[in-house]
């Protein structure tokens, strides 16, 4: 099944592109002109996105480079390990919603240090795959369309991340221990 999924994800984009273009030709849509039209919109969108991303990335960079984020992780580690989240995995759990690249490097580090088939390696892999960078998604999606009031999107997103972390621990313990 997994081999199939891999094949599908490789084929999906080229085949989707082909299908769209075939239907467009059949329906006599001026494909190239329409493509360029839509592409221009994409360019405008990415420029308007820049300040949102820049602001967020700078704030994260300050927090990380000052050492405050590490101190925060150190502070939370004992609390998290009390509820069953291993101390080694705590940095990943805390970084995942904040920064995608930082989380990925922590995951790589854990897999490298403890081995991919260890409990920690499997746990890090599952956590990395089952959550996403909440702060980035909210910044990009709300930023691109100019939503100023996010409602409780951030709150729900962070609660979901927390649940995801706990659930990963339970599932990996259950499946592999």
């Amino acid at each position, binding site marked *: 099944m997994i081999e199939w*999924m891999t094949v599908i994800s490789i084929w999906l984009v080229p085949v989707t592109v082909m299908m769209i273009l075939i239907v467009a030709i059949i329906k006599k849509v001026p494909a190239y002109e329409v493509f360029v039209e839509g592409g221009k919109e994409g360019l405008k969108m990415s420029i308007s996105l820049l300040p949102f991303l820049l602001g967020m990335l700078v704030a994260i960079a300050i927090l990380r*480079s000052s050492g405050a984020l590490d101190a925060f992780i150190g502070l939370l580690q004992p609390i998290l390990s009390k509820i069953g989240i291993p101390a080694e995995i705590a940095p990943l759990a805390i970084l995942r919603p904040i920064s995608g690249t930082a989380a990925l490097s922590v995951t790589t580090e854990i897999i490298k240090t403890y081995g991919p088939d260890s409990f920690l390696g499997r746990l890090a892999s599952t956590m990395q795959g089952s959550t996403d960078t909440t702060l980035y998604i909210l910044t990009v999606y709300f930023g691109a369309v100019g939503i100023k009031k996010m409602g409780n999107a951030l709150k729900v997103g962070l609660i979901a991340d927390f649940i*995801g972390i706990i659930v990963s621990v339970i599932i990996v313990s259950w499946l592999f221990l």
Partner: protein
Amino acid sequence: MINVIWALMAIIGIVYAMFNGTMEQVNEALFEGASDAITLVISLSSVLVFWLGMMRVAEQAGILKGFAKLFRPIVKRLFPDIPDGHPAMGYILANFSANLFGLGNAATPMGIKAMEEMKKISKSDQASNSMITFLVINTSSLTLVPTTVIGIRMEYSSAAPTEIVASTILATFITTVSAITIDRLLQKSRQN
């Protein structure tokens, strides 16, 4: 909320650096973070231009509408305030499918389009219920095959690089369902 969080992140970092003696690193990071954003936007713009171009063609050819009609019964329950046959539905579905197959770069442009269409429905600069539901589903990740993680596992010679797929799908499923539930509960308390 985001205004305070954003400002606090920077303020806490700078104050911490005063006591920790890391002001120099902070000073460097400020400009590095800014130039990282430019790099990110440039790589994002290639994807945005390509996919929004392609999506415009799909829209003109009526493909998105057909797609939306096909899956309407499922999506309708999640996004009750999106009218039938609205293009937002098509973009939401396109974003979900791209996410499921791990095509992160294709998912973002479609997600942004979906947000744009939902904004047209709500006509406000405040996040609507559908927008929050949509983003909550996105942040809880929808990936079926976490290709990046499998890649890393292969690199460090795992005996079974793909064995985490089942645990990932299960974790994703439970997280997404709980995220939707929490979102619904909060939505109710917001309205009351």
